[in-house]
């Protein structure tokens, strides 16, 4: 199947099945109070850690070759949120990143554009300018990324600034301290407040920082909490801690969005971020998506990779498929 055709079809289809992301009736009473929310989250079935990791590992052994590989690489490129989140980010670097997002491989115009560029709020305007006239979105991290340790008023101001500057997507971090202390309602209220601040123009991605949640059970609870609060996307991590996206925790979140849609009819996207550096890894994640959530998620409206160095590896693999020769880092940009 040709990529362009397919993703166009999927995007159109997606709109038809998607309902507005408000708390659905079936689950509306669970967020009525702190205790009902706690009862619901702790009532979620426990995660079989060994089974989960074994399942993720076994799905990682699929052999994806030739035309399927070419399709997977193009799909993966179109799902990349090209990210730069460093203290040393300059307007020049953001502009270069924007140019790369719009046209990842200038030597091959059939290469799809990436999904978005992901920057800090103060760089949104620069990024917006850099991708103007293309379909590439601008995502901005907000809410005192990456720690999230700031008063709620500061977090909301952070979000409003980013949205006002033109961000199409907001990546917020949850308050892990409150979550781990069992203060679920506080986390819920924060997410709903941020969702409100996003308004109708920006989609909200909720980052759980799975590396800090310590158990799979917690990741499952956080996923449901995020979705109940109205997240458009759930995202594994900030990329700033030791453990980032792994196949196992992404599989767990994919199961959560699948079950959530089955119960409520609302589709939520998934974004693994951090630590995905090779095409091989990216293709493994796509296999997870297809086998767990299903084909509906195989589109950059519903699945993203938060990455920076991954794109270069995808481009080198793409060049290898096109020419038959192994490519090298001399033939992609240095970011």
């Amino acid at each position: 199947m040709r990529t362009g055709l397919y993703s166009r079809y999927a995007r159109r289809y997606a709109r038809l099945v998607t309902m507005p992301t408000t708390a659905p009736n079936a689950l509306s009473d669970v967020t009525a109070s702190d205790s009902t929310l706690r009862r619901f989250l702790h009532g979620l079935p426990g995660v079989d850690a060994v089974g989960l990791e074994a399942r993720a590992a076994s799905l990682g052994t699929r052999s994806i070759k030739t035309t399927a590989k070419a399709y997977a690489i193009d799909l993966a490129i179109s799902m990349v949120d090209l990210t730069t989140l460093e203290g040393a980010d300059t307007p020049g670097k953001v502009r270069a990143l924007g140019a790369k997002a719009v046209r990842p491989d200038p030597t091959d115009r059939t290469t799809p554009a990436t999904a978005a560029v992901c920057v800090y709020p103060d760089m949104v305007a620069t990024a917006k300018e850099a991708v103007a006239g293309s379909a590439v979105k601008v995502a901005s991290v907000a809410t005192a990324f990456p720690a999230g340790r700031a008063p709620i008023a500061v977090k909301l101001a952070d979000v409003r600034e980013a949205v006002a500057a033109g961000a199409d997507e907001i990546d917020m971090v949850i308050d892990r301290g409150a979550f781990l202390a069992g203060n679920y309602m506080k986390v819920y209220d924060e997410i709903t407040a941020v969702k409100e601040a996003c308004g109708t123009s920006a989609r909200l991605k909720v980052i759980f920082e799975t590396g800090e949640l310590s158990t799979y059970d917690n990741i499952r609870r956080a996923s449901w909490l995020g979705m109940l609060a109205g997240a458009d996307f759930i995202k594994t991590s900030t990329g700033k801690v030791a453990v980032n996206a792994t196949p196992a925790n992404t599989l767990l979140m994919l199961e959560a969005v699948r079950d959530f849609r089955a119960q409520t009819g609302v589709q939520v996207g998934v974004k693994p971020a951090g630590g995905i550096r090779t095409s091989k890894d990216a293709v493994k994640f796509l296999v997870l998506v297809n086998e767990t959530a299903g084909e509906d998620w195989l589109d950059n409206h519903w699945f993203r990779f938060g990455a920076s160095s991954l794109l270069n590896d995808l481009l080198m693999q793409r060049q290898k498929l096109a020419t038959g020769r192994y490519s090298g880092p001399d033939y992609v940009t240095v970011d």
Partner: protein
Amino acid sequence: MSDRLNVLKTYKLYVGGKFPRSESGRVYEVTDAKGKWLANAPLASRKDARDAVVAARKAFGGWSGATAYNRGQILYRVAEMLEGRRDQYVREVAEAEGLSKAKAGEQVDAAIDRWVWYAGWTDKIAQVVGGGNPVAGPFFNLSSPEPTGVVAVLAPRKSSFLGLVSVIAPVIATGNTAVVVASETSPLPALSLGEVLATSDLPGGVVNILSGRTAEIAAPLAAHQDVNAIDLAGADEALAKELEIAAADNLKRVLRPQPVDNWAATSGTDRMTAFLETKTVWHPTGSLGASGSAY
């Protein structure tokens, strides 16, 4: 009296300082000069070649950036380690090339001496092929040799150890990193060399050793966009032509196979200079004073 069970050695590739089996899981039978089975060697695939190039590229910055003196010390350390395992190499070379113990011993001694010789060259080659150039202007004009990068080396087919050392040592002495394709018929001394390199302070990835069908592994290396040069010592005429054509795509430096009768003869600096680039820097000396000189 009980006979001991034979402890057979599993020969493995040497890539990135580690000893992996071939990614393909394949092996092939290696025989001695008379056709008697010696061991199974890994039959490397093009993906092993790709992984080796990645490892070599990763090691290049550190190795080329090390001081020439430090590289010399490390190469001398390799010679020391070889000396300690002389008996093993004598046996392997004797079996591989059908030589007597004495003749094989001569080969191994010559190989160790060759290694020491190149170890001495690391901090001297710059004086020989670089230097200050006289120019008509107020400039210091300095040329210095710089390593080419990742070099693919097809080891000689016949001389399994002395020939091998004579092509690897000059490549890495100047700061290049190497992906070596061992002799197809007698790869065992080369695979054992990996064990010496791994224990002599040589950073992992500086030398990567693959065994298998030369034509199969060399083709992707010659076409690889991230390999900067290729030494065709172990290719026959037809293969060398084919590889040189593939290598032209990214303008690799190509060292054509030389007719070598006797690897024991020293080759001079040719094998080092074949994989060097010359960097020339113009440095202003400042304006000339009234007296005609700024100093």
